[in-house]
């Protein structure tokens, strides 16, 4: 029991520098921007042209004339209090804006991840089971195509075929499961392809292990062996990379959200980029980073549950 606690504490301690690093990255984003945030803020309505003195005053007011490290630390302190600043465009707290959109992205991402898992893993298992047969070849080709197809291209084709021509699925919006089907498939296609290949490779590797031979010698049918011994063992490497897929999904969601008009974090950041809403872009980086890190923590925990060797502290 102590081992598990130790493991968890270790993992938790390890994410602290990563979280700090994410805030640094977000902070640097603000620095590398070619234009002066003070000027951008003063010029938000697009009509007034602020004078140098006005900009200097604003810079002082915003604390931009302090040393970078001081700026960073005070900014970090704000973030720790849940204050990500005020959006230049809407004048509302970025935190509120992001929280408004977070559920959309989270539901899209989890829907996609679920889709990826329930399609790619069985298909990968099937491919390994039928290794080198015709169906394996067909599925491998499909997986290759999935990995190589640009998601936005797929999204456009889907919308054309399923919404405009067949009237099967809604083009855009958020609310019901039906709204998430096309975005999830388009968003998940690449990951499905990768995961199919990975699951197949992992299972094939496991099937070459001695213990599969042992199980065969017991006289159990092959599908039962895959189910009882192959699947769980092949899932361990697959699950350790689950975080990566989630990262890919969260990343890709910007394009997909903008095509399907989903009011999530991705479309928010695109909007913010257009409007040069730097605090919003920084907030987005911090939020996605946070979501990603937390998800990876979950993966670590599930890995713990799956792998008795770690759970029981053997080595």
């Amino acid at each position: 029991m102590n081992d598990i606690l130790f493991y968890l504490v270790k993992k938790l301690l390890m994410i602290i520098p990563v979280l700090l690093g994410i805030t640094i990255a977000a902070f640097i984003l603000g620095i590398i921007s070619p234009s002066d945030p003070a000027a951008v803020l003063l010029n938000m309505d697009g009509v007034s042209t602020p004078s140098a003195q006005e900009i200097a005053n604003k810079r002082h007011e915003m604390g931009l004339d302090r040393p970078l490290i001081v700026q960073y630390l005070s900014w970090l302190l704000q973030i720790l209090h849940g204050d990500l600043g005020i959006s230049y465009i809407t004048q509302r707290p970025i935190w509120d804006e992001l929280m408004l959109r977070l559920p959309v992205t989270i539901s899209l991402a989890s829907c996609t991840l679920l889709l990826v898992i329930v399609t790619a893993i069985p298909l990968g298992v099937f491919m390994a089971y039928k290794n080198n047969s015709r169906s394996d070849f067909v599925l491998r080709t499909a997986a290759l195509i999935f990995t190589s197809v640009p998601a936005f291209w797929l999204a456009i084709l889907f919308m054309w075929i399923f919404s405009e021509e067949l009237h099967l699925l809604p083009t855009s919006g958020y609310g019901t499961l039906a709204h998430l089907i096309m975005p999830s498939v388009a968003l998940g296609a690449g990951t499905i392809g990768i995961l199919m290949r990975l699951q197949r490779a992992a299972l094939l590797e496991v099937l070459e292990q001695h213990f599969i031979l042992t199980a065969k010698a017991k006289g159990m049918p092959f599908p039962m062996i895959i189910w009882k011994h192959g699947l769980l063992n092949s899932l361990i490497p697959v699950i350790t990379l689950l975080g990566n897929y989630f990262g890919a999904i969260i990343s890709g969601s910007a394009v997909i959200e903008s095509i399907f008009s989903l009011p999530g974090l991705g479309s928010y950041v695109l909007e913010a980029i257009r409007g040069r809403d730097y605090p919003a872009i920084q907030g987005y980086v911090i939020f996605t980073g946070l979501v990603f890190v937390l998800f990876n923590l979950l993966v670590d925990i599930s890995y713990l549950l799956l792998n008795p060797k770690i759970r029981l502290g053997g080595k």
Partner: protein
Amino acid sequence: MDNNIYLQDVTISFTTKAGTVHAVNHVDLNVNSGEITGMIGETGSGKSVLGMSVLRLLAANSLISGSIIYKNSDLLQLAEKELNQIRGKVISFIPQNPDAAFDPTMKIGKQIIEGFLYHDKKSKAAGISHGIGQLQNYSFHEPQKTFNSYPFQLSGGMRQRALCAMGTVLSPKWIIADEPTKGLDAIIRQQVSQVFLELKKTANSSILLITHDLRLAQKICDTVIVLYAGTVLEQGPAGKLFDEPLHPYTCGLIDAQPHRKLLPLSGMPPSLINLPAGCKFHLRCSCRKDICCLKEPALLEVNGQWVRCWKYA
């Protein structure tokens, strides 16, 4: 009808990227029931492959011809489903390398009784009590605890014993044990050999013991088969074979043992991709004749032993 296993002209090859590997070549054997038959040879002699082929446990890239007859049916021709009724239940196989032979994510006990539950369709509780009993038989001090342990929590010796327990859980007629003493220290080796003798005595099981441990073979086997490059070079009763080895290879093997002359065999086993013509052993043989390089000798009976050498032709 007897319970012997008859191997008739069994040839096994593997297709690999480097070429076709001829692992076993035209083996004809009768493995008698009711006794312990040892199969010895160097690494790569095809002994494990031959053992696994009985239950068709070889990898997908293997090609088997010939027939393996048990109780009037050819095991090589059986449908998978029928074969599964034999695997583990009638003929069980104890794989080598106990470190890798257990599923690392499943508890030992569950793995041990898995076959039992599948074949005998017993309740889980019955399975568990049977499994714990089985572990007790194999002299585990805390069978309950071992039953609920994961493989990595056991020592190498314990794992080997657990593997034997798993192989014998259904009290099979036949046990094919692949290198059961590999990598074990003397005391545990002793324990394991004791186990096999007991199995033969109490359960009346027949055992095919695949090993390169000649002392073990000498100690517990009734019959010994010497395999080289996938071919049977010599076969005979254990005592006789070890006392008066006929084939130069057998002599060499015996002399190479530490407690004997510690005289290693010169040369390397032949490549299984390009097998030498004639006698498989002629390249390393000290009493090579011209004919050895040209023609392979037949297996001949000499004084109740069978030997494949031109010396005795």
